[in-house]
């Protein structure tokens, strides 16, 4: 009789001591709201999209049955789609280094407490709050071949401005300039936050050693914000793969399909031509491309960490 009565307080004490750190199924409730939203808004649509990509589904005519890999096979023979893949990858290649390089450059310039820096930080971030419609409307007025701002300025010096809207080779770079101008604020702010985490003592020590500015940059600043550089690159790769509004509103994918991105192709196939299965197959290819590019970036970042 005495043994159970002695054991009971011991068990109670152990339970109290472990209560905070112990894993129970009930703890899952803490993440349940997020998990529910994640499943309903992300995982289920992703699964449905994958299923849809193997179906003949017309938005008006309705469901036409499974078609296996036919949608993917047709995509591989569709020159407009292949062009959009090439355009999207090229756009990522030219815009992401600009976001990382220019974002870092601006952050380095404006990384102090002066009023001037504060003013310019607001200016550079300000354009990010504009909608894509306003941004593209403004830039169309800049790029317009005969009467645009660019041509007017060039005309004052007797020059002809480059024609970003009607020259195949310049269409995507023109859109990249608009995009960088529009949302350079976010990478700049991320770099600023990272720069302000670097202890000042390190810079003081470098100053005592008479280290040059370049030396300080490559030996102290860049290694210290390496993770942020990878973060910005990954974010921008994912964002720029989703290029749509600027291309749709400035060039409508032209001239000669030179600026049509994958998302615009998906939009046209799904909503203009009503071929939902075909559009879903293109979406899966975009998903794989984005996943691959983001994973590659992170892998490169980890390699550097390991080194």
């Amino acid at each position, binding site marked *: 009789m005495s043994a159970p009565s002695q054991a009971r307080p011991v068990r109670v004490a152990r339970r109290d001591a472990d209560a905070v750190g112990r894993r129970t199924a009930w703890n899952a409730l803490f993440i349940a709201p997020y998990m529910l939203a994640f499943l309903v808004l992300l995982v289920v649509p992703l699964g449905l999209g994958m299923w849809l990509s193997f179906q*003949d589904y*017309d*938005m*008006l*005519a*309705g469901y*036409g049955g499974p078609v296996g890999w036919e949608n993917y096979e*047709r995509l591989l023979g*569709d*020159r*407009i789609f292949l062009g959009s893949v090439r355009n999207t990858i090229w756009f990522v290649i030219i815009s992401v280094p600009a976001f990382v390089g220019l974002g870092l450059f601006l952050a380095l310039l404006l990384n102090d407490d002066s009023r001037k820096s504060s003013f310019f930080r607001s200016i550079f971030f300000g354009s990010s709050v504009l909608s894509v419609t306003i941004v593209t409307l403004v830039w*169309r007025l800049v*790029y*317009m*071949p*005969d*009467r645009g701002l660019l041509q007017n300025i060039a005309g004052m010096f007797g020059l002809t401005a480059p*024609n970003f*809207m*009607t020259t*195949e080779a310049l269409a995507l770079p023109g859109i990249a300039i608009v995009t960088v101008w529009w949302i350079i604020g976010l990478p700049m702010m991320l770099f600023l936050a990272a720069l302000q985490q670097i202890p000042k003592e390190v810079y003081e020590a470098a100053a005592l050693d008479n280290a040059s500015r370049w030396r300080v940059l490559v030996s102290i600043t860049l290694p210290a914000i390496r993770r942020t550089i990878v973060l910005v690159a990954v974010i921008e790769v994912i964002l720029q793969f989703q290029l749509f509004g600027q291309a*749709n*509103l*400035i*060039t*409508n*994918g*032209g*001239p*000669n*399909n*030179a600026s049509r991105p994958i998302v615009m192709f998906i*939009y*046209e196939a799904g*909503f*203009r*031509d*009503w*071929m939902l299965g*075909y559009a879903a197959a293109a979406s899966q290819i975009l998903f794989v491309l984005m996943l691959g590019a983001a994973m590659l970036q992170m892998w490169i970042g980890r390699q550097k960490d390991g080194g």
Partner: protein
Amino acid sequence: MTITKLTSALAAGAIVAGALATSGAALAQQKTEISFARFFGACDADYGTSQDYQKARGECGVMTTLVNHFNATNKDNIVVKPQIIEWGPYYQQLTARIAARDVPTIAVMHTSQIGDFVRSRIVEPIEDDLKAAGIDINDFTPHAKAGVTLNGKVHALPWDTHSWLWHINVGMFKQAGLVDAAGAPIVPKTVDELMQQAKLIKEKTGKPYFVMASVAAGDAGNGARSFWTMMYTQNASIFKDGNFDKADFNSPEAKNAFEVFERLSKEGYITKGTDGAGALGGFIGGNGAVLLTGTWRIDDMIAAAAKPESGLKEYTARIFPNLFKQDAVWADNHSWVMLRGGTNPQTRKAAQIFMKYLWDHNFDWARGGGHLPIRNSLMAEYAKLPERPNVMRITEIGRSLPHDVRRQFGFQSLIGEEVNNIINGNKLAAQAMKDAQERADQLLSRR
């Protein structure tokens, strides 16, 4: 006593509040709201509260004031709620709304688009509704009647017939000596004559012959309408022998049509990289001799030419001329449809009443916008309006694709984009034909 009084007062208050709420709800119940999906633009800054449809100008002004006037004057407690969507993505959004079962009560629809929606049984016959509303379908003009009739039944209330015009800066034609003894512009009869005129305009004014928007998604229609017109004037079609499942761009006629744009582009006789606003502003500013756009701009151009500071010196409109074999021009109709799942008995009745109102004001639409009315009984009156005698023949020579052609919006986009590629991207006509063929095959490869 105090508590009793307080309780009584509260109870009385509750009864009064309840009665008020009930009567308010009853009033609200009597109002019938119908949603009204349309394009034609938004112009609340100019016409947001105006009901004076007789003074309104342009499609947007007339449409907005008509709805305001109906909402203010109808005796049936009907409230029309406009849902305004930009023209370019209108059909994409409408289809997405149908798929999401967010169906408007009444929607505007080009009769060229109705076929796809009827085949999907989303648009159903409305002859009974029109009869119930007191609309006489025998008064429909032949082109409008053909546009809304599928399988022998009327599926929509036509609203106008619109077509493709040359809006001409007569002052620039005069400058180049391209007017007759009466001072009227001489319109070319062949492609070579067109090129000679364009050369003269360029030499005498330094400006391009044609101004045409060719950049934005909505601009694809401009190239497509010009292409169709040039095909019709050659008595040709991309669909042959009644086979609407196969488009054929490999014809001499399609080559001719694309080559007109190739020649214009090479010689700098047509504006490049211009959007809708730029084209309109450029033409009014005197930066081109002929604006390629539709009937819907007639009234705007008359107003613009009347301003002393305008670069548009004397204005006239002409149907896109026959440069090949026969008089013919692309023409389409706006119409009003009731989509399946968009009405209940109450809103359907209200929709009939509003359609009757629109029918009664068809002339106001034609006057303010420039489109042709769809009622035979209004044609004589329409012909008295400025510039309208020049476009009256559209009712005779206007042509459209048969309703059997599937995905006509897709065709408009792909043809328009290929024309724009010739203009802006220096694509050769032969390559445009090849690419159009490939894209058309893709478009028709499914049900």
